[in-house]
């Protein structure tokens, strides 16, 4: 062994051994494969955005004002065709998510991270939340149908007005609740323990510690999670189909802030898109209308997501 060491360490041997670099073709191939995967992904998604935008141009380019203020119509060339009713529905769905899912979700997260003792029951709740997050959205639609529309229990339909914006909002709030809990929980878990100990160390109670240290520190993460879940809710269509969104004609076209219409029949942007896509066979003009509605929805959703992601990244940088 030692002998081998000696000769292998002779100057010339060393020199030779580290020189004569060969290009590593396998590595390069691997790299370019991965790279093309990424590029392809981005390209496809770009095509999606571009093609949709192009399809919808005749609506959003030509008559944006009317399109935003118009309503569901029977013919695509109708001058009053537009998505205002859809926007109303989606807006209030977002609001009900904010009002219902956020406080409950964040509260639950705080309990799970800061209070819950480590026992069977707690881990049961945890598993339960994780699984809820994996339940398909149609199933939540069924829940909404049974509870809020048919009032199979507690006769909740009397409260929601049956197939109403309210029912849709509540259903989607329930749908995103687990997401809110999980993301907020992760944000809270990222709070360094030294902060907690520091607060306790000078005689803060648990809630004082949470209010003054944990929550402020976790705020950006929580906000990110909530924004993402709100975007998710606004984009969901399947549950709304089951909760009975209107695809034909909505009698009135409520002003955005008209609370009265909350318990009325409703529609929402994703539903408008679906319905118009299906009608595009009878009346091809509806394809463009659907694309236009998609652009409106995407603006809605992508802005929320960008805000969320941007926010998170800024704080991640600040904290190294």
């Amino acid at each position, binding site marked *: 062994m030692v002998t081998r060491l000696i000769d292998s360490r002779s100057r010339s041997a060393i020199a030779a051994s580290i020189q004569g670099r060969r290009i590593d073709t396998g590595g390069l191939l691997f790299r370019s494969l991965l790279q093309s995967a990424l590029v392809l992904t981005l390209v496809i998604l770009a095509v999606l955005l571009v093609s949709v935008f192009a399809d919808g141009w005749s609506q959003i380019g030509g008559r944006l004002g009317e399109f935003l203020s118009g309503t569901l*119509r*029977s*013919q695509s060339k*109708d001058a*009053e065709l537009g998505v205002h009713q859809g926007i109303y529905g989606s807006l209030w769905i977002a609001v009900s998510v904010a009002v219902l899912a956020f406080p409950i979700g964040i509260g639950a997260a705080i309990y799970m991270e800061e209070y819950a003792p480590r026992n069977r029951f707690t881990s049961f709740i945890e598993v339960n939340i994780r699984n809820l997050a994996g339940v398909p959205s149609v199933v939540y639609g069924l829940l909404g149908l049974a509870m809020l529309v048919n009032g199979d229990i507690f006769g909740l339909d009397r409260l929601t007005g049956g197939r109403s914006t309210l029912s849709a909002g509540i259903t989607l709030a329930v749908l995103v609740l687990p997401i809110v809990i999980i993301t907020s929980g992760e944000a809270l878990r990222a709070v360094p323990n030294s902060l907690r100990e520091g607060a306790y160390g000078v005689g803060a109670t648990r809630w004082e510690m949470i209010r003054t240290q944990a929550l402020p520190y976790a705020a950006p993460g929580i906000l990110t999670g909530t924004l993402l879940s709100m975007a998710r809710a606004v984009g969901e269509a399947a549950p709304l189909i089951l909760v009975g969104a*209107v*695809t*034909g*004609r*909505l*009698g*009135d076209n409520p002003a955005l802030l008209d609370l009265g219409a909350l318990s009325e*029949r409703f529609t929402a942007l994703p539903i408008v898109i679906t319905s118009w896509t*299906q009608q*595009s*066979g*009878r009346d091809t003009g509806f394809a463009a209308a659907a694309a236009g509605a998609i652009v409106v929805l995407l603006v809605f959703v992508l802005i929320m997501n960008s805000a969320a992601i941007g926010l998170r990244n800024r704080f991640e940088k600040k904290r190294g």
Partner: protein
Amino acid sequence: GDDESVSNAGSNSRTDNGASATGPDAVSGNVTISGSSTVEPISIRVAELFEDIAPDVSVTVDGPGTGDGFKLFCNGETDISDASRPIKDMEKDSCFSNGINNIVELKVGIDGIAVMTNAANEAIECLSFEQLFALIGPSGEGTATWAEASPGLPDAPLEVFGPGEESGTFDSFLEIVFEDLAEEQGLEATTRTDYSPSGDDNVILQGIQSSDTSLGWVGFAFAGNASGVRLIPIDGGDGCVEPTPDSIASSRYPISRDLWIYVNADKAAANPAVSAYVDFYMTEGLRSAVGAVGYVPLTEAARSETRDRWASRTALD
């Protein structure tokens, strides 16, 4: 010619409804309509025209299907129910048992049912009911070519597309074409199961377009101006007839069904908005809306009959 009809609608209706105590523009209130997705476009179109002269009336129209429509209607949840078939007795009974006794049945239009094949398929000039039953009916189960299903027809691969059972078009087709033959042959009046059903008429068209010797049926309103498909003349016993608005309106074309709306007379009495809407339906609606959305308008005679029914509020019993 649609925009004109809108403007006419304005003027005409004013004169027509001059009789009624208050002009529609003074009326306000809500009208709730649900039911057949086939009739839905008509009711919506009427509502859109009506809105111009009665801006304070809000009409909501939904199209879950005739059956769902009657369910709501008989629960008193809707004022008017669109239907692509007459109400069934059990539905009527459930209405009565819920104290909805004054139901006015109004025929508003006709929808032909077009039997189609791929535009490239010149071989088929005409099909008789027997042939249709042989091709699409239960006896056709498992047959792969036209000839196999019905001797005499070309020996070309057969792919069948049509509406699913959810749709009234499906039921009407069975009722009109199959019922009697099925009885004669002691078979069930239904389709073969090995066909491609779809609730979305586009999918049916796409299917027919995608296969050269395909066979299928959809509502005439939908097929009328579709490309890549050929509407097949049908022999209902007295000769081959092409489906055209005229042949359908004059019911020379054998496969067509009537479209209906059912009005809850009590609600109409209590709610001027409803009666005003139906009044308008009876005039502008029957005249321009039906045609505008691709259906076949009633003959003048049929229209006046419908108007009378409404005028006299003739209820079902």
